[in-house]
């Protein structure tokens, strides 16, 4: 595992669908209608149903745990939601090593839409064994 500052970790591309939004709503227990009811979503000014912020966080969590494997432990995981994302568009999760301090490694992580806009940005810190 390369942990040099600036190294980009393998990207993870997700293909969320409306079916996945319903599946996630059930698994998390978040039944806010903007994630599965098109008419409701439009009534509150959205283009249609949108991805749960926490589903995008889960995608970014997978990005980090796939990269880390059993070689370390996730210590902190932080995301800010900067824009909405809709299903039926690929969602690309990416990350880059930002800081290495002994066993502690900080990653800059982000999720980008099909136009390359970073709609979720964050930081993860891990401790390498």
């Amino acid at each position, binding site marked *: 595992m390369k942990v040099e500052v600036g190294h980009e970790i393998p990207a993870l591309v997700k293909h969320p669908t409306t079916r996945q939004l319903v*599946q996630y709503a059930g698994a998390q227990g978040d039944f806010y209608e903007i994630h599965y009811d098109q008419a409701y979503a439009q009534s509150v000014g959205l283009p249609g149903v949108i991805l749960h912020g926490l589903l995008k966080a889960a995608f970014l969590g997978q990005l980090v745990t796939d990269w880390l494997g059993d070689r370390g432990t996730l210590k902190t995981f932080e995301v800010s939601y900067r824009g909405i994302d809709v299903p039926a568009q690929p969602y690309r999760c990416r990350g880059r090593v930002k800081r290495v301090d002994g066993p502690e490694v900080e990653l800059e992580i982000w999720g980008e839409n099909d136009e390359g806009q970073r709609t979720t940005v964050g930081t993860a810190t891990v401790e390498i064994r």
Partner: protein
Amino acid sequence: MSTTTPVIDRLRARIGVDGAPVTAAVEAGHVSRFAAAIGDPNPRWTKEAPPTFLVALAPVALHLAEAEEYGKGWLNGGNRFEYFTPVLIGDHITATGQVADVYEKSGSTGNLLFIIFETRYVNQDGVVVAKLRGTMIRR
């Protein structure tokens, strides 16, 4: 003052005060459905919960329902998880949430209400396994 003032005051009065705790078991079937829902096939999730699973154990923003008097919809501003020990299948986790801050901001499309909340998760041995801090926005 606007009619929305009382709800802000009521939320502000709760800053730093723990809400009622919620206890839930980390069940293998639930974790497996959660991992399937996020599309993460890692076999590790047959023994352990994925990083964001804690939000499925209890409502993310515990006891913030009354904030729905403000505006017409919720936005999730962000989430920060801090992990201390892994959450394993079979654990019994108690989530306790509190409001950390409440403030109003004017945005381009009207006023927004920001509610910063904190939840701590404690396992059956009394060990704090994780903390979550989040920003929920009413618009």
